[in-house]
C-alpha cells in the first residue's frame, strides 16, 4: 500500500539520481578477477560515460582479496569501498578467522565492512553469541563502517528479522542489511519495511541513527522507487540519503541509467547504450 505513490517528472528524476547515488555496486563471484574489479570501479565512478551529469554510485562492494585493486582504482573518486568479510556468505568459520578477515580488508583500504551474522547461533537462540561476535567485528573494523547482514531469507519470520535488527543495532552496527545474495530469497519489500521500522524505533529509543541496505533481487527502477517511497513513509526523509540507505545491486544500475535517459530524451532507450562491466 505504502509503495503505491505516483512520482512524476522532476521528482522522478531526483529519485532516480538518488537511487544511483545509493547503489552499492557489487561483484561477489568466485570468478572475480582484478580486470573485472577495475572495470566495475570505472563504472562506479562514472556510471554513464555519455552523460557527465550522472552521479557516481555510493560504493563498490567486493571480496577482501579484491580490495587492494579496487582501492587503487577508486582513489580520489569519493566512492566508498565496501568489502564482505567474516567468511562471507556462510559465516561458518572460527571467530579468529572472521576477525582476521575483517582486519585484512580494512588494512587493504576498505572503509565499509559487510559482515554476516551467525545464523546458526541465532536460530538456536544463542543471541548472546551473535551479539558478541558483532561487537568483536565492530571493534576489528576500527574506523570503517559496519554493515550487518541478517540474511533474512534464512531467518524465516518477520519476528526474527525484527529481533536480529535490534541485536545488530545494539551491538554497534552502522547499517543493517538484508541479504548476501547467495541464498534463494534475497531482499523483499516487506522485510525491508520491518527493518525500516526497527531503525526508526531504535533512533527513537537510543538517539542513534542506523542505515538500511536491501540487497539482491532489486533489478528495476520501478522496484527501487517503491523502496524509496517506503523509506520516506516509514523511517522518514532523514533516511533518503546514501549515508543511511543503500541498494546492494548490480543489474539495477543499468535500468536506472536507462530510465534516466528516457526522462531526458522522451523515448525508450536500450541496453546497447549502457556499459556492461
Amino acid at each position, binding site marked *: 500500500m505504502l509503495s503505491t505513490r505516483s512520482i512524476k517528472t522532476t521528482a522522478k528524476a531526483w529519485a532516480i539520481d538518488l537511487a544511483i547515488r545509493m547503489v552499492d555496486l557489487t561483484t561477489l563471484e568466485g570468478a572475480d578477477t582484478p580486470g573485472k574489479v577495475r572495470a566495475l570501479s570505472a563504472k562506479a565512478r562514472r556510471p554513464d560515460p555519455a552523460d557527465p551529469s550522472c552521479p557516481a554510485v555510493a560504493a563498490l562492494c567486493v571480496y577482501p582479496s579484491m580490495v587492494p585493486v579496487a582501492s587503487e582504482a577508486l582513489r580520489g573518486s569519493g566512492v566508498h569501498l565496501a568489502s564482505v568479510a567474516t567468511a562471507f556468505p556462510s559465516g561458518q568459520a572460527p571467530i579468529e578467522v572472521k576477525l582476521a578477515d575483517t582486519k585484512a580488508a580494512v588494512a587493504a583500504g576498505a572503509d565499509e565492512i559487510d559482515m554476516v551474522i551467525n545464523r546458526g547461533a541465532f536460530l538456536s537462540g544463542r543471541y548472546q553469541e551473535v551479539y558478541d561476535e558483532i561487537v568483536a567485528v565492530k571493534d576489528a573494523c576500527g574506523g570503517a563502517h559496519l554493515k550487518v547482514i541478517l540474511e533474512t531469507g534464512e531467518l524465516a519470520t518477520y519476528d526474527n528479522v525484527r529481533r536480529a535488527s535490534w541485536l545488530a543495532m545494539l551491538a554497534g552496527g552502522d547499517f543493517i542489511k538484508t541479504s548476501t545474495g547467495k541464498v534463494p530469497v534475497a531482499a523483499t519489500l516487506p522485510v525491508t519495511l520491518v527493518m525500516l521500522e526497527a531503525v526508526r524505533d531504535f533512533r527513537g529509543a537510543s538517539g542513534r541513527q542506523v542505515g538500511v541496505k536491501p540487497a539482491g533481487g532489486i533489478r528495476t527502477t520501478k522496484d527501487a522507487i517503491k523502496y524509496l517511497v517506503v523509506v520516506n513513509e516509514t523511517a522518514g526523509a532523514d533516511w533518503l540519503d546514501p549515508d543511511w540507505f543503500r541498494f546492494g545491486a548490480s543489474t539495477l544500475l543499468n535500468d536506472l541509467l536507462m530510465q534516466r535517459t528516457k526522462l531526458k530524451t522522451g*523515448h*525508450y532507450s*536500450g*541496453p*546497447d547504450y549502457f556499459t556492461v562491466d
Partner: protein
Amino acid sequence: MSRLAVRKTYKLFIGGKFPRSESGRSYLVQDANVALASRKDVRDAVVAARAAVKGWSGATAYNRGQILYRAAEMLEGRRDQFVALGEPEAEVDAAIDRWVWYAGWSDKIAQVYGNANPVAGPYFNLSSPEPTGVVGVVAPPESALLGLVSVVAPAIVTGNTVIVLAAEERPLAAVTLAEVLATSDLPGGVVNLLTGKVAETAPWLAAHMDVNALDLAGVRDAALATSLEEAAAENLKRVLRPPAAPVDWSADPGIGRMTAFLETKTVWHPKGT
C-alpha cells in the same frame, strides 16, 4: 431456454501471455471490446521481444522451420474461425499457404542469400545472413489476416522477433492469429501483438532505442510514415517504407521482406599449414 454464449475477450499478446492493456483501456471495434494499447504496452512488448531474440535466433533453422510449420497446422485448424470473423475464404487459404511458404524458407534463405566469396588471397571468406534483431511491424489495414501473415512470417522465419501493431479497424483476426501462435510451439516473445491506435503507439515503437528495424507496411498516413522514419533514424533502424501503390497480398511476395531484416556477416579465416 436457449444457451447463452460465452464471449471472448480480445487482449494483447506480449511475451506469450495475453494481458489487457496496462492502461486498462479498450475500444469498440468489429462489435467487440478490444484492448487499446498504450506506450507502456509498447515498452513491455519490446522487452519481451528482446528477451526472445537469443533463443529464437539461436535455434537451428530446421527447428524454426518445424515450429513455423506447426503453427500452419494450427492455423488450418482455425480456418473456419477466421472466415467467421469476415476474412474471405480465399484469403484465409492463401494466408495458410503463405505461412507454409515462409516456414520452408528457414533453412534455405542462407543458401539463396549467403555466399562463398572468392577473395584474391589465401582466405576462407563466407557471407551469411543473420537476423537483425527486434522488428516493429505495422500490419496492413486492408488485409487483416493475409496481409498480417505476409509481414509477420518473413520477419520471424529468419530469427527476428517482432512487435506487431494490428490493423486498427480489423484487429480480431490478428488476436486470433496470436491465439494460434500461443498454442503452437513458438516461444513466447517471438511475436508480440498490440491492438489499438497506430498513431498513438507507432511513434513510441519508432523512437525506441532497443528496436532494430521497422516495417511500415500498414501506415497509410504519409505524414505519419515520414515522422516514424525520422524517429527511426535516431538509432538507424532499418526501415521498410509503406508501399507506394496498393499491394496485392495474394501475389508471390518475393524474398524482399526477409532480406530487409537481415544483416550479412562475412567471416574471414586464413588458409595455411
